């Protein structure tokens, strides 16, 4: 008479996998939204130095990148081993930086320009000479907000 009859024998119902696609889709959308494709192909070595006093770069769209470092192995025959500057997808000369800075500024709307930042992504092995040259060019182009791209961690010379 009891309402709760014990099932005797028989297999329990199989776990329904009908919701599996939903779960997977959810994950998929998460990654699709958060993913950032690399915009440029790096042609030079770029290992960041480490620092502890870092600030996050907000507003990716307002950041322009300047890469400095020795060319990768495959480009060494053509460009040598001395550190070079890369803007967008190609190696650039120092004189190109002003043009680049101005072009990047033109792209942004008037109201956003004061918030623009130039991120200097220099390889940790380079000397300050080339970095200073880049800084001077940026100053000439009146691009004054910069950011030295670093990794988080204790600086190597302190270890």
């Amino acid at each position, binding site marked *: 008479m009891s309402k709760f009859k014990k099932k005797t024998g028989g297999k329990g119902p199989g776990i329904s*996998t009908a919701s*599996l*696609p939903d779960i*997977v*889709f959810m*994950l*998929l959308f998460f*990654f*699709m939204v*958060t*993913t*950032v*494709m*690399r915009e440029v192909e790096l042609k030079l070595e770029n290992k960041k*130095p*480490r*620092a*502890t*006093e*870092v*600030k*996050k*770069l907000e507003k*990716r769209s307002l*950041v322009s990148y300047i890469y400095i470092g020795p060319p990768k192995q495959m480009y060494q025959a053509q460009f040598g081993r001395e550190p070079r500057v890369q803007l967008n997808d190609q190696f650039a000369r120092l004189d190109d930086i002003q043009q680049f800075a101005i072009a990047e500024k033109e792209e942004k709307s008037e109201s956003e320009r004061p918030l623009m*930042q130039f*991120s*200097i992504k*220099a*390889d*940790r*092995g*380079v*000397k*300050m*000479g080339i*970095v*200073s040259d880049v*800084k*001077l060019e*940026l*100053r*000439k182009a*009146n*691009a*004054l*907000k*910069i*950011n*030295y*791209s*670093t990794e*988080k961690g204790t*600086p*190597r*010379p*302190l270890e």
Partner: protein
Amino acid sequence: MARRESPEINAGSMADIAFLLLIFFLVTTTMDVDSGIARKLPPYDEQKAPPPPVKKQNILQVLVNANDEILVNEDYMELRDLRQKAMDFVDNNYKGDCDYCQGSRDKTMSENPEKHVISLQNDRGTSYEMYIAVQNELTAAYRELRNRESRLRFGRNYDLLSDEDAKEIAKLYPLNISEAEPLKL
């Protein structure tokens, strides 16, 4: 009349397709947030106007040479001592008109935090890594001073303050790092 049932589309492979896409995005995604040390460059001046006069005691001269050795006010110094030195210098309060300073009021160091200048000069041969490390230590010195003050006033660290409060604290310990053109050898 016979009703034909339309055949149902088998959705069993949908999960597989979704998985495939998921794995693609998992692999290509880079989660690292870009971060770094923020700085403001001085505007370019073609005439090279002479800098405003600053009393010698208000300048902390930091030189980094091509061998990555540090010279602070003409004394050799280890990188690990630089932070404390910069803190002592900024917080010195020789003049005595800075009521929140806790410095030693040494007569060879800055008059008050408002007047001090840390002059950083490097060589063209200085390694970038060392330069960043020095910048990092100097920034850390300011951060520690600001943290100390903001804990006293607001009970929280500087980076947890609201924008308004943070501005107030930043005003008490302004970041005055002036960079000279590197020496050419």
